[in-house]
């Protein structure tokens, strides 16, 4: 009789847990946000700093905090599941049934947490992919988004600069040969600055950090971004696969709950029958009929 009352209680507990989870999810979704913006500064950053900058921005967001919190909760819930599972195996009778109920409730809570974590992770990955795509689009626009006239213009400017560089030395020699006046202020300052700039360029080229950039990332920035988008897509595909797994786990929990409920009903019927046999009014009366 007592055991048969547990079925509606179990259902009520499960419903309460799921409704609480949904409500808290709705409240949390507002505060768990990450709104990255694609600024010009971000686009101009070298490729290896680009990913770091986005990652750092995410780490500072409420969404990252929420993900960390859920991760911790999942870890704790797993420990609880392990402890309960061992306890349920070792227990007998009503306590065993009670612990199995508790285990199912905890499993359900664990699945809710996993679902929440997947939702947050999916949100993060989708936003990250959107950011990479927007940077790539802006980068490509800057690179090839010029009008034919602009392309022609750049070509002409390059040709002019090449011609100037080619004849620079000869022109200088002719100027000095034809005029006795000293070099202009601009020319002397420019020469000084140029030597300073060359020294700095040499220092930049020799810098270990710069060497590391060249060694680890020899590919073009757009290609690098394309690779990041592909990596994010792969992670999203894994999250989708995990969602399917969680679906199967939920199905299994549901089947376990049904099995447990049916087991309890069977036990109750069995106990009921046994009790009825014990107190059957017919058996004691039989002796009267046999007489």
């Amino acid at each position, binding site marked *: 009789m007592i055991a048969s009352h547990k079925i509606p209680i179990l259902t009520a507990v499960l419903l309460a847990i799921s409704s609480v989870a949904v409500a808290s999810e709705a409240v949390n979704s507002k505060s768990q946000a990450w709104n990255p913006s694609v600024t010009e500064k971000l686009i*101009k*950053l070298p490729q290896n700093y680009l990913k770091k900058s986005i990652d750092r921005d995410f780490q500072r967001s409420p969404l990252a905090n929420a993900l960390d919190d859920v991760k911790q909760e999942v870890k704790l819930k797993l420990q609880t599941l392990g402890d309960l599972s061992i306890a349920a195996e070792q227990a007998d009778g009503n306590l065993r049934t009670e612990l199995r109920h508790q285990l199912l409730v905890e499993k359900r809570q664990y699945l809710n947490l996993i679902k929440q974590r997947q939702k947050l992770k999916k949100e993060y990955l989708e936003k990250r992919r959107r950011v990479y795509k927007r940077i790539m689009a802006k980068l490509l626009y800057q690179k090839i988004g010029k009008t034919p006239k*602009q392309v022609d213009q750049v070509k002409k400017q390059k040709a002019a600069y090449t*011609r100037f560089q080619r004849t620079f030395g*000869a022109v200088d020699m002719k*100027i000095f040969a034809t*005029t006795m006046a000293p070099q202009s202020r601009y*020319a002397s300052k420019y020469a000084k600055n140029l030597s300073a700039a060359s020294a700095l360029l040499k220092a930049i080229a020799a810098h270990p950090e710069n060497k590391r950039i060249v060694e680890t990332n020899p590919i073009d920035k757009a290609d690098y971004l394309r690779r990041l988008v592909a990596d994010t897509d792969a992670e999203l595909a894994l999250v989708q696969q995990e969602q399917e797994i969680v679906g199967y786990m939920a199905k299994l929990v549901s089947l376990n709950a049904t099995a447990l409920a049916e087991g309890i009903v069977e036990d109750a019927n069995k106990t009921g029958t046994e009790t009825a046999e014990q107190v059957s009014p017919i058996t004691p009366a039989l002796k009267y009929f046999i007489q």
Partner: protein
Amino acid sequence: MRKWTQALAATALVAAVTTADAAHAGSIENMERERAILLETYLSPDMTAKERHAKANLSKRQLIDLERIVLRDKSLVGRDTPAVSRAFDNYDLSFLVHASLEKDLTIFDHWLQQTGVSKQAVMNATRRRR
């Protein structure tokens, strides 16, 4: 402490990237103005040969620097404005001093050649009333 160092590095990097292409406005206009003064000096009938020579030399030295400023101005790359287009459409006429020295001609001869007027044609011309 580490966060501060990272922030400093990022700021320095961004500053370096953004200041690298600071625009130098008006370099073409300055060059064109100086070139006009030089051509005016050559064409002006109100000067003696000595005055013309002195003024043209001064202008020429000034124009060399201005032409180099324009040619080295990275802010002009890809800029689609009439002044920029005009300047790079014809190197020989825009960068007059460099082009004339490259061809071993005087600036005025080079300019006449580029505008389609030869010394021979000028010498053969006759003065007549319109």
